[in-house]
């Protein structure tokens, strides 16, 4: 049963990553396979994560408390995300200021990916700090 769940997660990951690869390749027919394989390989990790969340995680995870919103983990989450929101505003504001002053040109996709990575890392660090303080 456990192997089946992992297999289902793997298949889900392959299907999603394959779909993303095909979609990416279709926008550049000259190098269809190269683009498709690179995008499929790059997106396999998160795609497998979706499968893992759908098939592996629910049966193995502990049942959440009845009143999640009154648990301290919810409080940590709210504090980390709200704190991160202001961090993102600050970073985006300062970054825009620097780009305007230096007249450096950057691709929008690069800036957005950097912002997403920063936001994830910021929330993760804030949440971990709050959890460790409570330990």
């Amino acid at each position, binding site marked *: 049963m456990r192997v089946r769940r992992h297999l289902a997660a793997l298949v889900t990951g392959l299907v999603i990553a394959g779909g993303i690869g095909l979609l990416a390749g279709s926008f550049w027919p000259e190098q269809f396979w190269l683009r498709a394989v690179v995008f499929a390989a790059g997106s396999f990790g998160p795609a497998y994560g979706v499968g893992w969340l759908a098939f592996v995680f629910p049966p193995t995870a502990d049942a959440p*408390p*009845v*009143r999640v919103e*009154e*648990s*301290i*983990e919810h*409080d940590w989450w709210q504090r980390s995300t709200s704190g991160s929101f202001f961090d993102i505003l600050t970073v985006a504001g300062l970054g825009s200021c620097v780009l305007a002053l230096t007249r450096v040109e950057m691709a929008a996709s690069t800036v957005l990916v950097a912002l997403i990575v920063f936001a994830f890392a910021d929330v993760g660090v804030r949440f971990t700090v709050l959890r460790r303080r*409570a330990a």
Partner: protein
Amino acid sequence: MRNDLADRRHQRGWSQGRLADSLGVSRQTVISLEKGRFDPSLPLAFRIAALFGCRIEDVFDPADG
């Protein structure tokens, strides 16, 4: 906020997990409450008081917050 939650729990011989289940919150919530590092919401404070058959101010001491 300072409280005597741990004493009341010990008197009843309950584990932190048992108390957490009764209150519908996580065990970590009970740990943080007992250490005084987490102030409960009003509904949770009412449930704690009801569970121990007392008033909220019998369990929690706002003067030491």
